[in-house]
């Protein structure tokens, strides 16, 4: 099932990993996940501390799980029951670390050639040449990592990992700190490289922007477990977990209790945090009296300065602006409606509507902008 010289490889990475970790000064951490990574980019998304890097370390063979099974295609790399535990050297899994871990004393070219030790010189030189070109860093071959700029270092780290023709690529937040344009350019080159080879690529990130930019398939993780799998829209637009909702950029996370179920309409009414304020949200698994948590994006809330009528939106809530602060190109307003809502506005809106602290306003929320999340 190995790739030979870039032949088509349709092998999937499958991993089920259990690992109990007791770290000094922190609560014991349990990693218990099962996942499948098909060829192409799969994003592993979750807040920091979710266990993403530990999982990658297990797959690469750097950390030994307590139990589980890891296989690339038909080839078993780890199986606690069968007593199989292949060394990282023989797994042929490429791994780009968050710090990149380029060898600081070797030139870019020597870094890239590092994994080709067993090959005859001409062959290794040709492979290095090809990959340096594919990642557009052939001009930097003689430079050492400390003399190379961010973005180009990432390209060299990718080239170093991929030149060995691995059967799986693990990327641990490799593009952190780069601007969106640079990220997109590097990801394009990675996609181009992988178009012919089709190996599974597991891309770890904790930022939503990267999920949106890369997204084919997302696996969301938290507290050492997989909490959902699907397309970015499925996983992130309707997050079912509080920490995931926070990580995915839901500024409003409001507690409340169910006061009415309207199964026929597919909605239910939720009273927010013992206030008078009630909103209509999509029907969830709940009965009257249940405590629930609702996530709403600050950008999904409309704001009006007079009471709106004849709207399709079911939630119109009266309130008062209590604070406004500029945040880059938007203004973040806090509106007191019995509970506080965060609303994002443009500076233009603030000027035209003459918004200021103490202003009486109405918030408009579509039912389906309100997402129920679990703790």
């Amino acid at each position, binding site marked *: 099932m190995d790739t030979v010289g870039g032949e088509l490889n349709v092998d999937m990475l499958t991993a089920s990993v259990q690992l109990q970790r007791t770290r000094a000064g922190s609560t014991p951490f349990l990693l218990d996940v099962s996942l499948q990574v098909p060829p192409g980019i799969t994003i592993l998304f979750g807040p920091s501390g979710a266990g993403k890097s530990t999982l990658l370390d297990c797959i690469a063979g750097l950390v030994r799980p307590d139990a589980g099974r890891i296989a690339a295609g038909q080839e078993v790399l780890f199986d606690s029951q069968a007593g199989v535990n292949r060394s990282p*050297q023989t797994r042929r899994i490429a791994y780009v670390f968050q710090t990149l871990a*380029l*060898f600081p004393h070797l030139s870019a070219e020597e870094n890239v050639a590092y*994994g080709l030790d067993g090959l005859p010189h001409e062959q290794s030189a040709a492979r290095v040449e090809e990959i340096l070109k594919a990642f557009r860093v052939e001009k930097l071959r003689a430079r050492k990592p400390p003399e190379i700029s961010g973005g180009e270092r990432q390209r060299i780290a990718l080239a170093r*990992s991929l030149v060995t023709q691995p059967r799986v690529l693990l990327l641990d937040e490799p593009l952190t700190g780069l601007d969106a344009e640079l990220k997109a350019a590097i990801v394009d080159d990675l996609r181009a490289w992988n178009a012919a080879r089709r190996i599974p690529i597991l891309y770890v990130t904790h930022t939503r922007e990267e999920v949106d930019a890369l997204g084919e398939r997302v696996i969301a993780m938290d507290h050492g477990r997989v909490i959902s799998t699907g397309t970015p829209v499925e996983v992130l637009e309707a997050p079912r977990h509080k920490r995931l909702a926070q990580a995915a950029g839901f500024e409003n996370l409001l507690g409340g209790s169910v006061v009415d179920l309207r199964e026929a309409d597919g909605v239910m009414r939720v009273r927010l945090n013992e206030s008078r304020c009630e909103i209509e949200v999509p029907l969830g698994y709940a009965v009257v009296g249940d405590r629930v948590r609702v996530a709403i994006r600050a950008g999904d809330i409309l704001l009006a300065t007079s009471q709106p009528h004849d709207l399709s939106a079911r939630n119109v809530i009266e309130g008062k602006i209590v604070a406004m602060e500029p945040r880059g190109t938007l203004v973040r307003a806090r509106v007191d409606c019995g509970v506080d809502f965060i609303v994002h506005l443009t500076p233009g809106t603030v000027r035209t509507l003459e918004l200021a602290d103490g202003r009486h306003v109405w918030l408009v929320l579509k039912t389906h902008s309100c997402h129920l999340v679990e703790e």
Partner: protein
Amino acid sequence: MDALLLSLRLALCVSAILLAGGLPLAYWLAYSNWRGKFLLEAVVALPLVLPPTVLGFYVLVAMGPRGPLGKFWQSLFGHGLAFTFEGLVLASVLYSLPFAVQPLIASFESVDRRLLDASAVLGASPLRTFWRVILPLSIPGVVTAVVLSFAHTMGEFGVVLMVGGNLAGVTRTVSIDIYDHVQSLEYAEANRMAIVLLAISFAVLSVVYAVNRQVGRQIGRRLWTPWAAN
């Protein structure tokens, strides 16, 4: 001058042996997960705190005709180990062990673990990782180890006196020679020797700091020195 040449010969032998033996020992101490490791660490560091006479005393007893080392040596070479150059080398190796091993451990430990992980996933064996990654990034530590064990051996007194005695051309090192001159009130001779030793020590430390600067600038790492540890 015999004494000076003898000291130089001794220091060269000792630093060569310590480099060869110190690399694997320091590697093991830096990377092993063995629970009892602290015991060996303590043994290696012992000469730092032990009075040289105590160390010298036990080495002498071990080397004596009834000691295990002495008997072993006798059976191999037909003569004892105490009061010989070989015995002096052995005692000095033990005495300077921490000066070689500790800088090596410190520089091995300061190599980013992710570099070792990267090397492993790229298929390199632990030995290859050592030669291609750990050692090149630990050059300042290696230089310090060699230079310190050399300088420390050049200047030792108590251990030499206990183990080697004072045999001209065999075990009479520079510091013993200086002591003898002072005992006989030959201050001019003592001064001549002392100033040579002072010059050598100064030169040696200058080399350490110069290398620290040069190499440190190249690989972005600082040199380990015992007085700047931790």
